[in-house]
């Protein structure tokens, strides 16, 4: 049957793996392997020059660790039980890994070998000492470590690596001063990975005031919330007592108490110790797992669905905007086109009237019979020009209208303006102008008219001169007849000219009128056509846009809904995970017998 702590530890390892924390799982697996190992590792830790190595020496009553006035310990030294005293240097990548090489060295040369290997760039990661002692018999391993906070960070690092393997810790501080801030900090750090700590106050032989320091330290520990025994010792007295066999001195050194404490609290209570160690390690791992889950939960609550809802609101706002604007662009188009048509018609009328006035002026004097062809060409030219100008204006204006409508559109797009809004055959030619009837005034007609006119003159003057006795036909009457005949010919031709002119004017007016009616009709048609195609174009665009916006609004709405369900699902998951972790934590707590601090969460 496996121990209950093993189950809890295995569950915690599984939880770590499930939460994607292979690093934590790895650490816990290490711990598990070590807990199953019958050896009990007791780490001697502390700041430099507090007497750690001397403490180990005094505990086993043998100079196994090098002591010196300057920084001496550079690699962790493992002191364990062996039938015959032996020592070895271990090389390897790290003290946690399997050693790659063990070099046996004589016990009394261990210190010099360690420092020598350091000077030769060696990668000695630890020293091992075997010594026959009853204390170590039960599998106890004392690990002397380099001081924490030393100027060479490598020393400190190896101490912390060793800390991960420890079952119990002896925290060493000397009695010449109280625990400093950094020592308390270190102690707290140690407590997180190994809760079985005994604080050892060394060098009480040279500190006259050590009792006061003990009291103060107890107060410091209480304030820092550290529950650890504090034992004052003097290694110097112990070693001296061992040399002289002085029992009283040994008692005075404080070591009997320390050793009893080690046997009782560490060796005898190995299972209890295992529970506590596992509890603390598991608790710290679970705390690390809980933190992100809880953060996620609270972040979800805090952040909420605002983002998706904002997207939905935005989409709806844009649809409304589009609707509002599409009503507007239609009005704009209708208004502008009405304006355009009336403007264009006025312009055309103005132009044709000017032409008519010119025609009138021309035919006041000119004889249509003489230059009709020329006139026709001229009129045709003018009318064409007027039509072209007018039509060009129509095009300009209609493009301008298109732009204006486009502007009232809610979005800017490249294809907003239609490419072409005209048919190619907008303009049919107007029918050619009818030539007015021009009466011929031939010689015969002239002679006849002359004779008709001369008749009156001859008769009139013949009668008058007959009174004077002259015959009816005489020179005078003939002369007068000739005169009268000439005049009537002139009169006649004059009249004919006027008639011709009037006819020409009428013909021109008719033609211009025809042109006007035809062309203005064309223009209207064109304008209507333009309006229709613009309307179609923009309506299509608006529809497209509306569709897009509606789609995005729909997707936003969907997102909001999805988000809600997804979030609820995720929340449920997270809550469940948290519940599981809390449950696990409660098991850990019961394992530790209420030793682990509460997690501070409620599921």
């Amino acid at each position: 049957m496996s121990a209950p702590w093993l189950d809890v530890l295995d569950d915690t390892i599984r939880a770590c793996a499930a939460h994607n924390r292979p690093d934590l799982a790895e650490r816990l697996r290490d711990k598990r392997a070590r807990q199953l190992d019958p050896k009990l590792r007791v780490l001697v830790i502390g700041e430099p020059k507090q007497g750690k190595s001397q403490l180990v020496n005094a505990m086993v009553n043998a100079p196994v660790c090098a002591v010196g006035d300057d920084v001496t310990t550079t690699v962790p030294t493992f002191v364990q039980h062996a039938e015959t005293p032996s020592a070895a240097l271990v090389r390897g990548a790290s003290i946690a890994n399997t050693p790659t090489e063990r070099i046996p060295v004589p016990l009394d040369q261990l210190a010099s070998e360690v420092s020598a290997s350091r000077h030769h760039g060696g990668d000695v990661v630890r020293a091992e000492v075997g010594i026959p002692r009853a204390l170590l018999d039960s599998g106890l391993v004392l690990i002397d470590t380099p001081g924490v906070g030393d100027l060479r960070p490598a020393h400190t690092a190896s101490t912390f690596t060793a800390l991960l393997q420890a079952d119990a810790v002896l925290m060493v501080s000397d009695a010449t001063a109280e625990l400093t801030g950094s020592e308390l900090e270190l102690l707290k750090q140690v407590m997180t990975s190994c809760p079985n700590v005994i604080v050892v106050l060394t060098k009480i032989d040279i500190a006259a005031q050590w009792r006061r320091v003990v009291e103060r330290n107890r107060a410091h520990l209480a304030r820092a919330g550290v529950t650890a025994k504090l034992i004052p010792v003097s290694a110097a007295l112990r070693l001296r007592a061992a040399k002289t066999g002085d029992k009283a001195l040994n008692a005075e050194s404080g070591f009997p108490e320390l050793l009893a404490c080690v046997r009782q609290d560490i060796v005898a209570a190995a299972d209890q110790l295992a529970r506590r160690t596992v509890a603390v390690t598991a608790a710290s791992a679970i705390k690390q797992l809980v933190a992100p889950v809880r953060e996620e939960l609270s972040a979800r609550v805090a952040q909420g669905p605002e983002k998706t809802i904002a997207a939905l609101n935005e989409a709806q706002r844009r649809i409304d905007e589009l609707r509002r604007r599409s009503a507007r662009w239609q009005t704009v188009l209708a208004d502008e086109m009405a304006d355009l048509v009336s403007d264009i018609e006025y312009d055309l009328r103005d132009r044709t009237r000017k032409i008519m006035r010119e025609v009138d002026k021309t035919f006041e004097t000119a004889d249509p019979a003489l230059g009709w062809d020329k006139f026709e060409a001229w009129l045709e030219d003018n009318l064409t020009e007027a039509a072209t100008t007018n039509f060009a204006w129509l095009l300009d204006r209609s493009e301008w209208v298109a732009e204006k409508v486009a502007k009232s559109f809610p979005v800017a797009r490249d294809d907003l303006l239609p490419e072409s809004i005209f048919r190619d055959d907008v303009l049919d030619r107007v029918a050619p102008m009818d030539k007015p009837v021009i009466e011929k005034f031939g010689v015969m007609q002239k002679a006849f008219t002359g004779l008709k006119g001369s008749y009156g003159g001859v008769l009139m003057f013949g009668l008058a001169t007959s009174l004077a006795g002259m015959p009816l036909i005489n020179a005078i009457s003939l002369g007068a007849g000739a005169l009268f005949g000439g005049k009537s010919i002139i009169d006649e031709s004059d009249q004919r000219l006027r008639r011709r002119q009037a006819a020409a004017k009428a013909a021109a007016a008719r033609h211009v009128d025809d042109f006007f009616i035809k062309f203005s009709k064309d223009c209207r048609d064109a304008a209507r056509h333009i309006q229709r195609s613009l309307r179609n174009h923009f309506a299509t665009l608006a529809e497209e846009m509306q569709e897009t916006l509606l789609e995005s609004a729909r997707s936003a709405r969907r997102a909001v809904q999805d988000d809600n369900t997804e979030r609820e699902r995720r929340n449920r998951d997270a809550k469940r995970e948290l519940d599981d972790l809390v449950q696990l934590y409660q098991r850990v707590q019961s394992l530790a017998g209420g030793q682990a601090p509460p997690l501070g969460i409620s599921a």
Partner: protein
Amino acid sequence: MMPAGELGPGVTLEDEVWALLEDALVVYRDSPRAVAWLRGHQARFGEPVRVAVAGAPRSGKSTVVSALIGEEFAPTGATTWYQDGPQAKAHVGQYEVPVLRRDGKAFVDAPDAERVTVEWPSRSLRDLTLIDTPAGAPVEHVYGEADAVLYLTRHLHTTDVRFLQTAHDHPVARIAPVNTVLVLSRADEIGGGRIDALSSAKQIARRYRREATVTPLCQNVVAVAGLLAVAARTVRAEEFTALAALASLARTELDGHLLSADRFVGEDFPVRLDPAVRRGLVDRFGIFGVRLTTTLIRQGFDTQVKLTGQLVQRSGLGELRDSIGVYFTERREVLKARAALLGLDVVLRAEPRPGSVGLAASVERILASAHDFRELRLLAALQGGRTRLPGDLEAEASRLVGGLGTNPVVRLGMEYEPTESELRHAVLDALGRWREHAVDPALDHGQRRAAAVVVRSCEGMLAQVVA
């Protein structure tokens, strides 16, 4: 040959800085705050060097201060200034408070004061003002008031290194390096109070002097047994009598009782000595002190005068005083100039106005060109390893620019008292050699510039010797 930007002949750094302060007073005459500040700096200019004693809690700051003054002071818990004065008195702000006696210690009762000023008639304070800073005082606080710093530590810890690095990281410190002496205090506790603890401590100090992380941070490392030093300077007749009585015992007989402080004050003591007396001895001397003094008395230092001399020597107090002399009081002028320039710089930054641009330029010019500062900078560069010179040149350069002391004899490394012509020859010899180094094409630009600074130092010495 005088490099550009150098001060004119006969104009000392002190004159120059004083003139600058006067100019600043004219520019800022309408700002009462600035005037008060500048006047304060002018006054500080004439004072002795201010040395702050800083360090971690329980590192023995008050003890070292007491040892230097030669009078045991109980720590006040506040920043305490110790100045020379005709009679013992203390001030908190403007108010005078009495200096009391408690358990034989001088004691100022000012529980809530932030700063206490103690005037004490002492020869040691004549050219030195000591500032005992409370533990945990921020770096700016310590380095702002003081001209130089004694940093105390029991064993150099990373937090100590961090403190010193912060101090050296200050932009001002880079232009005009801070003078710091690292003190391994409580040296008597090394090796569990073994009788040779002090020589061991001195070796450790020597190792630190060579340690790459430590050298750039301080000018010197000294080991001091503070408790012993105080006791040495204040040993009383009855204490001496008691110690002599102890020493009269056979060594084997006494050793058992010197094993621990508890045993020393315990019952059934072989000599008729009141336990209270014994407790007093172990409190004042420490168990190590008692071990050492009895041994010394046995070795023949059997009068109080002889014993005191030995103890001052052995406790490292002598060495500490020497270091203070060489690195602080001998450099009073440059340290004061530096403090004044820094003070002026503060005003120029806080209240810029039309005239201050010119003043700022002057401050910069003096900092950059005054030879004393260049010496300090070269020293710092040599110690920090930023400038390296081949072979023995490095040590010689460091010595010539005053790394061991500013006296020409020390600078030249002469171990005897030379005659004037010997001195002149030595200076000329050094000057000639370093002039060659200054144009030596084998050296790089930085090294040649370092050599030029050494040449200037030699020229200064020559002027001094001829005068």
